[in-house]
């Protein structure tokens, strides 16, 4: 059972454009993590959001946790080629391993 749905699955945009990717669930999570995976590497943690409604910014990346802690979004402003990669969200429930979404593959073209 896929508890975390990510959309879109693929996204190809021009450099300088803005984009938003989504991570949705019918389950409540205690926290949500976003990872980025570049080709040939393992995922690297970008941010953890814990409180419902929380917004965190990491340079041009803005992460939001839904009020009900069931969903999250990642917004990138003025995308750069270096943003290219696979973006994964992962939800934490109790003391069990993280549940990962299937990811959004972003390609930023110069």
């Amino acid at each position, binding site marked *: 059972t896929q508890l975390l749905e990510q959309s879109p699955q693929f996204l190809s945009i021009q450099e300088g454009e803005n984009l938003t990717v989504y991570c949705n669930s019918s389950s409540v999570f205690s926290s949500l993590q976003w990872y980025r995976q570049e080709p040939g590497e*393992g*995922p690297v943690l970008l941010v953890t959001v814990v409180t419902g409604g929380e917004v965190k910014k990491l340079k041009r990346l803005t992460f939001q946790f839904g009020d009900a802690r069931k969903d999250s979004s990642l917004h990138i402003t003025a995308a750069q080629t270096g943003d290219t990669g696979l973006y*994964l969200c992962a939800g934490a429930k109790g003391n069990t391993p993280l549940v990962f979404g299937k990811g959004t593959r972003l390609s930023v073209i110069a």
Partner: protein
Amino acid sequence: DVKVTQSSRYLVKRTGEKVFLECVQDMDHENMFWYRQDPGLGLRLIYFSYDVKMKEKGDIPEGYSVSREKKERFSLILESASTNQTSMYLCASSPGTYHINEKLFFGSGTQLSVL
């Protein structure tokens, strides 16, 4: 920085062979994990360990076993490799003394091809 090292980046094995994938972390983390990553299927948890000699099944343990004899090392074993085990295998660790789902640190992965 935490370093999670996987012994091989690429591995080619034949059907029926016994395969060992090794993973070492250098930050004294309690928890270690093995995932496989396949296009369209995302990351799927095979096994995890929260202490030396302890192991727990993940979502897809069939056809795999693990060993954790030392805190820093977590091995994934394919007893008799099959073609459907061709995949990218990712090892991860987390400090998680109280929570197993804290921040994960991943290795660079091993791309295993079973012919």
